[in-house]
C-alpha cells in the first residue's frame, strides 16, 4: 500500500483535490493511520503558523489608516487615477512602462554594438580594397622603357634616391591628355570617380600633372562641383582641374625638394616623422625639442665598418651631444654611433622597467631607422604594401585596439617579401614584432603571445644594436613573464 505523498496531503488539507483523486485519498486515509496522523499534523502546523504570523494592531490603527494613505498620496503630489485606456495607448505611455523601456534599451544596445562591430570590421577590410586599387595603379605607373612622350622618369630630376642605389622609382605621368591608353584603366579602378575618397586618392591625382594647353578639349563636359577648384570631366571620365575665369589655375601640390646632403661641419636637423603619433602635451614638447636639436656634423654618413651602432651613442647623436666610442655589449670592440637620420617616436603604454624618474618613466625613445618615406625607394608593389602597413600602424596607434595591431602586423608581414635581404628588412621585422607585441599587450591570448614571441625572436636574430633591439628584448622578457 503506497502512502499519500506530501503534495497529495497538502492538496487534501487545502481542499484542492477533486473527483477520483479526492475519493482515492479519502479511502486511503480510512485505512492508513500513519497518513491520517501526518495529515492532522499538517493541519495543526498550518493553524499554529497562522496564529504565529498574524498580528492585529487594533481598530484604532486601522481607523486612521486610510487617512495616512491619503496624506502620503498628497505629500507625493500624485495626480488622480487615470481610467484604463484599452485602445490606442500613446507613445508616452508606452515609454513609461519599465519593461518596455528595458526592451528598448536592449534593442538600442544591440544595434549600437552591431554598428561598432561593422565599423571596426569595415576598417579592417580596407587594406584588401586598397591593395587592389594600389596594385592596379602600380600596373599603370610602371610603363616599359623607353618612356613615352610626356612621361619623365623621376630619376632624371636628380633625386637623392639615385645616389642611394634604390631601384628606379615609378615614372610620373606629366600630361597624358587627352586620355591616353594607360589612364583609362586607372579611371576604371575607381581612382578618378569625381570625389577624392582618401588622402592616397588625392596623392594619386596629384601625380597627374595636366599639360596646360591640353585642357578643355571640345567634348569635355562641365561638371557642377562643390570643390574648391573647378574641374572638367574628360572622355575617360576623369575630373581635370581647369583655370577659373580670373586666371587662377589649380596646381597640384608638388613634392617637397629632397634635402641636400649635409656639408662637413654643417648642422643637420632631424626630420619630423610624417605619421606623428598622438602625444600628450608633455611628450609633444619633448619630441619637438629632440627633433629641433642639431645632429653632429657626420650625421647621415654611411655606417662605419669598425662596428655596429650603439644605442646610447645613437641616442646622444640624435640629441646632438658629443659622440664618443662606446663598448658594444654584444659584438665586442669599439663602435661608433649610428650616423643615419632617425625619427624619434614613443610606443604608447611602453615603460622601461629600469630606472625610475626622468625619461625612463615615460618610455624609451625608439630609434626608427628611416622615416615613413624610407620605403619610397622600394619598387612600386612593396612600396604600396609598406604605405598600407604604415597607415594601419597609424590607425592602430590611434584607436589602440588589439585587432588593429593584428592587422598592422599582418600588413607588415606582407611587406617583408619585398624588403628581404635589403636595408629595410630589420625595420620591417621590428614593425611586425611591435605590432604583435602591442596586440598581445592590449588583449593577451595564447595565439597572440605565440605570434609576438616568434616575431620578436625573428627580429632579434638579425637586429642591429640600437634602441629597437633593446625594446624588443624588454618586450620579449615581458612576454616570458
Amino acid at each position, binding site marked *: 500500500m503506497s502512502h499519500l505523498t506530501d*503534495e497529495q496531503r497538502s492538496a487534501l488539507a487545502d481542499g*484542492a483535490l477533486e473527483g477520483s483523486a479526492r475519493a482515492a485519498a479519502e479511502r486511503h486515509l480510512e485505512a492508513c493511520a500513519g497518513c491520517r496522523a501526518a495529515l492532522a499534523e499538517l493541519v495543526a502546523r498550518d493553524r499554529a*503558523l497562522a496564529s504565529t504570523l498574524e498580528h492585529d494592531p487594533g481598530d484604532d490603527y486601522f481607523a486612521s489608516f*486610510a487617512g495616512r494613505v491619503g496624506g502620503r498620496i498628497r505629500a507625493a503630489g*500624485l495626480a488622480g*487615477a487615470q481610467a484604463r485606456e484599452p485602445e490606442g495607448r500613446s507613445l508616452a505611455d508606452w515609454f513609461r512602462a519599465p519593461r518596455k523601456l528595458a526592451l528598448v534599451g536592449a534593442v538600442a544596445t544591440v544595434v549600437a554594438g552591431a554598428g561598432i562591430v561593422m565599423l571596426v570590421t569595415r576598417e579592417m577590410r580596407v587594406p584588401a580594397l586598397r591593395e587592389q586599387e594600389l596594385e592596379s595603379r602600380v600596373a599603370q605607373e610602371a610603363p616599359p622603357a623607353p618612356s613615352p612622350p610626356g612621361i619623365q622618369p623621376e630619376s632624371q630630376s636628380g633625386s637623392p634616391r639615385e645616389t642611394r642605389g634604390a631601384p628606379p622609382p615609378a615614372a610620373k605621368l606629366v600630361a597624358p591628355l587627352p586620355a591616353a591608353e594607360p589612364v583609362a584603366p586607372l579611371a576604371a579602378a575607381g581612382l578618378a570617380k569625381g570625389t577624392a575618397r582618401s588622402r592616397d586618392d588625392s596623392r594619386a591625382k596629384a601625380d597627374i600633372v595636366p599639360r596646360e594647353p591640353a585642357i578643355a578639349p571640345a567634348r569635355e563636359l562641365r561638371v557642377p562641383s562643390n570643390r574648391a577648384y573647378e574641374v572638367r570631366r574628360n572622355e575617360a571620365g576623369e575630373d581635370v582641374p581647369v583655370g577659373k575665369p580670373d586666371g587662377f589655375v589649380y596646381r597640384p601640390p608638388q613634392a617637397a625638394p629632397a634635402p641636400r646632403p649635409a656639408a662637413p661641419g654643417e648642422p643637420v636637423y632631424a626630420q619630423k616623422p610624417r605619421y606623428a603619433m598622438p602625444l600628450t602635451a608633455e611628450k609633444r614638447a619633448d619630441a619637438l625639442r629632440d627633433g629641433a636639436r642639431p645632429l653632429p656634423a657626420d650625421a647621415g654618413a654611411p655606417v662605419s665598418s669598425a662596428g655596429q651602432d650603439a644605442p646610447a651613442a645613437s641616442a646622444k647623436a640624435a640629441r646632438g651631444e658629443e659622440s664618443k666610442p662606446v663598448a658594444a655589449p654584444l659584438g665586442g670592440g669599439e663602435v661608433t654611433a649610428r650616423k643615419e637620420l632617425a625619427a624619434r617616436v614613443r610606443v604608447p603604454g611602453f615603460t622601461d622597467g629600469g630606472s625610475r624618474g626622468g625619461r625612463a618613466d615615460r618610455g624609451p625613445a625608439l630609434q626608427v631607422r628611416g622615416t615613413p618615406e624610407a620605403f619610397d625607394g622600394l619598387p612600386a608593389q612593396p612600396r604600396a604594401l609598406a604605405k598600407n602597413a604604415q597607415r594601419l600602424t597609424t590607425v592602430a596607434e590611434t584607436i589602440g585596439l588589439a585587432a588593429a595591431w593584428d592587422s598592422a602586423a599582418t600588413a607588415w608581414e606582407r611587406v617583408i617579401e619585398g624588403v628581404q635581404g635589403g636595408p629595410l628588412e630589420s625595420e620591417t621585422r621590428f614593425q611586425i614584432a611591435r605590432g604583435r607585441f602591442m596586440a598581445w599587450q592590449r588583449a593577451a591570448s595564447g595565439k597572440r603571445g605565440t605570434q609576438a614571441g616568434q616575431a620578436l625572436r625573428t627580429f632579434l636574430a638579425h637586429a642591429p644594436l640600437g634602441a629597437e633591439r633593446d625594446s624588443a628584448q624588454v618586450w620579449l622578457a615581458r612576454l616570458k613573464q
Partner: protein
Amino acid sequence: MKPAPRRSSQLEPGREAGLVRAAQGGDQAAFTEIVRHFQRPVYRVAYALTRNASDADDLAQETFVRAYQAIGRFRAGEPLYPWLARIAVNLTYSLFRQRKRRPETSIEPLVEAGRQWAADDDPAERAAESEQHERLAAAFAELSHEHQAVLTLRVVEDLSYDDIARTLGVPAGTVMSRLSRARAELRARLQARSGEGP
C-alpha cells in the same frame, strides 16, 4: 483545485467593479472605501512576510499608494485583492533586496499573544505555546521568500490556488507543488530545531 477560502477578502463582484471604475474616474471616496476594505488583509500579508509592525505599516501604506498610481491600468471586473496582494509581496521583496538580509524574527507576536492570554492560563502551558510560536517563526524565517509568500497567502490569507497563482504570477499547478514543498521544508526545519530526525 478550488479550496474554499476560510476568510473572505473580497467585496461583492459588482460592488468591487463599481468602486474600481469610480476610482479610475478620479473618485477619491471610492478609492478610500477600497483602502478601508482591504487595509487589514494587506497589512496581514505585509506583517506575515516581515514580522515587523513598523515595516508592515509602511509596506501596507505604500501598497495603496502604488495602487492609486496604477489603478488606471487595472482591468475592472477582475478580483482586486490578488492584485493588491501582489503589489504588497513585490514591495516586500524589494525591501528585502534593499536590506540585503532576511528579516529578523520579531518578538511582537509573542508580546501580543501574551496580552491576549488570560491570567488564569496555566503558566506551563503558556510557556510551551510561547516556545512553539518562537520555533515556528524562526523556522518560517529560514524559508525562501517564495515559500514564505505562498504559505502566507494560503495559511494566513486563505486565498484559493487560483488567486495565489494570480497574485504570484505563476500557474495554479505551480502553486500546488510550491505549497507542498514549502510545508515539507517547514516541517524539516522544525524537526531540525527540535532535535528530531528528518
